[in-house]
């Protein structure tokens, strides 16, 4: 009994193997190509369960039908104005005609080599027609990145579609850079630019400072001189009033004023250092010599 169970078990095993070789599943994300003794005979692009002849007769190849991204190495190119630029791109592509693809390139790594070649050549040719300012400029009218990449994409699309059954959706510009050596000189320029700015700021500061100081000085002197003017005016008024008062008083009898003032002056300028030489003729001493005779 036990041994007899083995036979159906083995049969079932074979059946499963056979089914496995006949039935196959196609995913939404892939094409399946049925090859008959190595020769492609059928492309299945609808997902689901499918049938084929068992394995040695027909076998299958699966190809991705999704959008694939390929990031080739960055390349160095020359622009129209003879500037070296490093351009890094990425390519969105998908397999459009599975049969052609299988015949022409067979596998994805091979396809990527082809794509890299096409892209590099086309970008080189396209960039040669544009100046660097078409890639980077503050003037939006000069920028032509979209146009360049569209041109490149169109050319690549043509070639890849015709030769490899590949649809290139778009060649995208990912990174734009300069070769290290040029980069260093750009840095140098940036540095000097900044130095210039720094100098400018400092001198502006000085300029401004001098202006402010001069202005302050000017204002200061203006204020002071005005003050002097006012002060003198005031003093003058005082003098005038004083003169008026003096005149009003002294004019009553100028002779008397002269006497009073003269006498006052005497008291002021005759001090202990003065040596007075008096003549006996003088009014003061007349009596000294003539006294007896007069009295």
């Amino acid at each position, binding site marked *: *009994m036990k041994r007899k169970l083995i036979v*159906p078990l083995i049969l079932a095993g074979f059946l499963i193997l056979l089914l496995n070789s006949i039935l196959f*599943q*196609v995913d*939404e994300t892939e094409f399946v190509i049925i090859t008959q003794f190595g020769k492609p005979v059928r492309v299945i692009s609808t997902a*689901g369960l499918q049938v084929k002849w068992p394995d040695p007769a027909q076998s299958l190849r699966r190809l*991705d039908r999704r959008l*694939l*991204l390929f*990031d080739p190495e960055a390349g160095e190119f020359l622009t129209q104005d003879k500037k070296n630029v490093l351009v890094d791109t990425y390519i969105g592509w998908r397999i459009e005609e599975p049969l052609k693809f299988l015949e022409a390139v067979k596998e994805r790594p091979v396809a990527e080599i082809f794509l890299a070649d096409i892209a590099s050549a086309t970008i080189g040719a396209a960039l040669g027609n544009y100046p*660097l300012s078409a890639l980077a400029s503050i003037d*939006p009218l000069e920028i032509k*990145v979209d146009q360049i990449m569209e041109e490149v994409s169109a050319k690549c699309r043509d070639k890849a579609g015709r030769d490899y059954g590949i649809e290139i*959706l*778009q060649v*995208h510009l*990912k990174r*734009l850079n*300069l070769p290290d050596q040029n980069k260093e000189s750009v*840095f140098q320029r*940036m*540095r000097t630019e*900044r130095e210039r*700015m720094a*100098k400018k*700021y*400092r001198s502006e500061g000085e300029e*401004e400072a001098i*202006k*402010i*100081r001069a202005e*302050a000085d000017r204002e200061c002197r203006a*204020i*002071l001189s005005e*003050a002097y003017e*006012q*002060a003198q005016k*005031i*003093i003058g008024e*005082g*003098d005038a*009033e*004083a003169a008026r008062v*003096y005149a009003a*008083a*002294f004019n009553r*009898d100028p002779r008397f004023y002269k*006497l*009073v003032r003269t*006498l006052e002056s005497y*008291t002021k300028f005759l001090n202990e250092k*003065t*040596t*007075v*030489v*008096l*003549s*006996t003729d003088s009014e*003061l*001493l007349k009596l000294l010599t003539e006294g007896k005779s007069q009295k």
Partner: protein
Amino acid sequence: MNLKVRIAIISVVINVFLVGIKFLLARWTYSSSILADAIHSLSDILVSLLVLSGLVLSILIKKSQTARWRKVEDIVAIAVGLFILLAAVQIFAGAVAGPPKELIRLPIALVGIFLCILVSGFVARLKIRVGEEQSSRSLVADGYHSRMDMYSSIGVMSGLVGGMIGLNLDAQAAGLIALLIAATGLEVIYGAVKALLRGTSLEEYWLANLFGHPLVGSKKTWRLGRKSLEIILWMRHRSRSLVLWPLGIIILLWLSSGLYVVSPGERALVFRFGRLLDPSGQGPGLHVHLPWPVDMMQKTSMSAMRRVEIGFRTQPTNWGEDVRSYQWESRHIVGKYTKKPEESIMFTGDENFIDINTIVQYQVAEITSFLLHVEDPETLVKSAAEEAIRIVVAMEPLDDLLTSERSRVEKQILEVLHKTLANNDAGIKVTAVKLQDVHPPLEVVDAFREVASAREDKNRLINEAYAYRNEVLPRARGNVVGEIHKAEAEKQERIHHARGEAQKFMALFGEYQKAREVTEVRMFLETMEQSLTGLEKFIVEPNASKEPLDLRFFKGQEAEIYEGVER
């Protein structure tokens, strides 16, 4: 006896095989009647397994415990019955309510179903014949049951033929079979409930009623049951190693592979043999699909904020040893961020370089595109973001990027990125582009810092000048006031002096007028007295000498005179 048993086992195996084939055919053709037929056969197998397991159980377990186990078994049987009933209702609802489905691959289905009919017909005949020869009523009953299966398959086939000539009877056939399945389910539940209520053995009822199908006379059912029991007893003898239990569990596990949970914020896509069933996918909740390998499920979170870092990478492992602050010249060697200069250094519109670190946040907007259209959506987002950043930065001057124009630039980048992703049908919605860290490249940071210092210096110089001004002007203003007050004071002083002197003069003058001569002389002499007293005086007689007067003569000694002069 041996022959009988072998046939019974072979028939179960063949039934399983037939169920498999029918399921396959159902997938290929989308025919609901074939699916119903398959489920019908499956429910039969389920019932048989239930009976077998129950019997095995009753034989294996000690008598004292059987009563309890029986109850458990009855309840399981009710559950199975409900399950079968549910399947029937679903098929019926699908057949009646659902839109008529387009059937495909009809020829294959026809051939397959025809094969099934042949096989079940053959098995049925074999069972009936052997059963009669061996006088085993249970086998005969089983044979008639198989024949029922055959009839239902024939019904399905006629439906398919109708489909081929343009008459779609698929739904009707499915509905009929659903009724059959429902009958089976009800029978199971009925039997189990009855057994539960009576406290008798479930198997006895089934052996009496189920294996003795209505087609077989009910009078001899009990004996048929005894015969079936014999088969079971033999099986128990053969399978002492309890092969059947693990097998049952494995089958249950297999069936449960079709259960799946979609968490809040997620969506799931179900694929049947690789083909997408419903492009809009399933929302959150508990769902069922057919077990592996028929259906497969793939789910993804729609609400999760995904992020891509450009120019740097967060290193979760280094979080412990973070640096204190990130400055422009940080080289990001330690700490949680690692720099990626090849991503972050870019060319500005005025041909300078700038170092920009960016974070892009995105969500899945459309699950089908996200999972099926693009091989690697994350790389696409990252590359497209790098592209967008560079395109926008290449239009802006360095100083704007460093200072005022950030939010506008972020918005522009978002627009460009959005366009690229839409063109590639990636099913992605970018929610935010954040310029995380924008600064000049390391190589020129010093020069930029110098500019900042120069700007400070400028301000410092200006401030110093203002300080000077603030020092000088108030002082001057103070001086003005001082001068004016002083002048005012002098004015007053002079006036007062004048007035005083004038008054003094006037007073004197008043007296003078009264006695001119006397006053004049008095004043003269008083003054002379006052001023000449104590002075050194020489009195000279003018007639005494005609010679000019030599003062030295009076002083006596030269030295003293000189002294006096010097003093």
